[in-house]
């Protein structure tokens, strides 16, 4: 088997600061097609696709959303897996998800974030239905409220959620909406439903085979599907079994990584690729004061990942920890 492609330090710093990594079209089309076939995906409005609702055994226009979900759950080849199972034992070799997990980029990213022996928490196939399904049952077709998954989670350790988009997602299909940099905010799941829109929010528009790796704390929600086609997204949550320290390829960590830079007053512009710059780059939605707290929390997460409490970026933590005897 090919060696896993581990993340580099800049990618890890990006994940630390913004809470996600995106890999466009990293999954080969052969796996995408196999996955769609295994879930019994229907493309009832796409005459060219050659796959129709009738082929899948149902008339999509005549069944409700709940029935459609029940049909997919009952007939799809997605395995039913107990929470706490080793990821290595979760997916049979040869099935689409087993082949996806075997990709060097996928294995390397998982190993870098949650370690080789990570465990499976849960997975779920999210289906976003077109307007006519809602019309059929007299319901409004709306987006999902903004939320953070699971429940209040104040840990420094983190789980990773993989979002797999097996087909192309256009803007009108309502790909997952998420707000980069919100992952370190400790909130209670749907308590943030009121936040309809935030500056800097992103909507996933992507080619088939795109993967999004997210910190478990990312604020997100499913978009409203205004197209005529079904939208599928498969999510897998993985948990570490080891401390998440230096699991990535650290060979590119610069030798001056622990040194401080001049701050506020300097000649020229700071290097935007410097890890300290990555960890202290603001998001558009940052509040004036708590944006600075985000830097502190990112730096603390980076310390945890490095296993080195000496690290600081632009003196943010050193300043507030300085209490001479």
């Amino acid at each position, binding site marked *: 088997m090919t060696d896993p492609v581990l993340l580099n330090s800049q990618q890890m710093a990006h994940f630390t600061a913004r809470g996600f990594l995106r890999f466009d079209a990293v999954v080969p089309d052969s796996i995408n097609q196999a996955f769609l076939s295994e879930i019994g995906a229907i493309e009832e409005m796409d005459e060219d696709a050659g796959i129709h609702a009738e082929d899948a055994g149902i008339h999509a226009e005549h069944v409700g959303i709940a029935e459609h979900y029940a049909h997919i759950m009952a007939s799809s080849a997605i395995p039913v897996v107990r929470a706490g199972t080793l990821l290595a034992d979760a997916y049979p070799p040869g099935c689409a998800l087993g082949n996806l997990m075997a990709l060097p980029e996928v294995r390397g990213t998982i190993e870098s974030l949650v370690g080789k022996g990570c465990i499976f928490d849960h997975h779920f196939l999210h289906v976003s239905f077109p307007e006519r399904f809602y019309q059929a049952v007299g319901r*409004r077709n*709306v*987006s*999902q*409220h*903004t939320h953070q998954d699971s429940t209040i989670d*104040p840990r420094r350790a983190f789980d990773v959620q993989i979002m797999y988009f097996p087909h192309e997602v256009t803007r009108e299909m*309502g790909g997952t*909406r998420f707000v980069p940099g919100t992952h*370190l*905010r*400790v*909130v209670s799941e749907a*308590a*943030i*439903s*009121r*936040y*309809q*829109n*935030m*500056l800097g*929010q992103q*909507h996933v528009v992507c080619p088939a085979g795109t993967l999004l790796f997210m910190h478990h704390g990312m604020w997100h*929600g499913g*978009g*409203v599907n205004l197209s005529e086609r079904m939208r599928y997204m498969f999510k897998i949550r993985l948990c570490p079994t080891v401390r998440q320290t230096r699991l990535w390829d650290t060979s590119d960590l610069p030798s001056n990584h622990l040194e401080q830079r001049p701050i506020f007053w300097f000649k020229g512009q700071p290097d935007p690729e410097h890890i300290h710059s990555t960890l202290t780059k603001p998001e*558009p*939605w*940052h*509040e*004036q*004061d*708590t944006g600075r*707290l*985000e830097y*502190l*929390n990112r730096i603390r997460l980076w310390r945890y990942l490095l296993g080195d409490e000496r690290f600081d970026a632009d003196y943010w933590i050193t300043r507030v920890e300085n209490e001479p005897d």
Partner: protein
Amino acid sequence: MALRQQVLVLYLKSSALDTEVIGWANYDGTGETVHMAGDCDEPPYRTGIGALRDGWRLIQATPLVPHTPGDEFRTSYLKYEFFFEKLVSVSD
């Protein structure tokens, strides 16, 4: 004619109403418009003052609360939330 409430929630960059909008939500009691999560990537006003100038009445602002010892650096919900309303006449 009857009165119905339109509600605008703005999240600002600081406690000052003249700072930039970083988040927003709309709820329309007239039923004429429907808003939902992710429906717009541009804020309706640049600052809170912009909403006042457009006739929105401020009805609630989050208070400034001292930080709990030991919890000073934790970030959580958006901090500067302002509720505005408009009262609109509709046909019965």
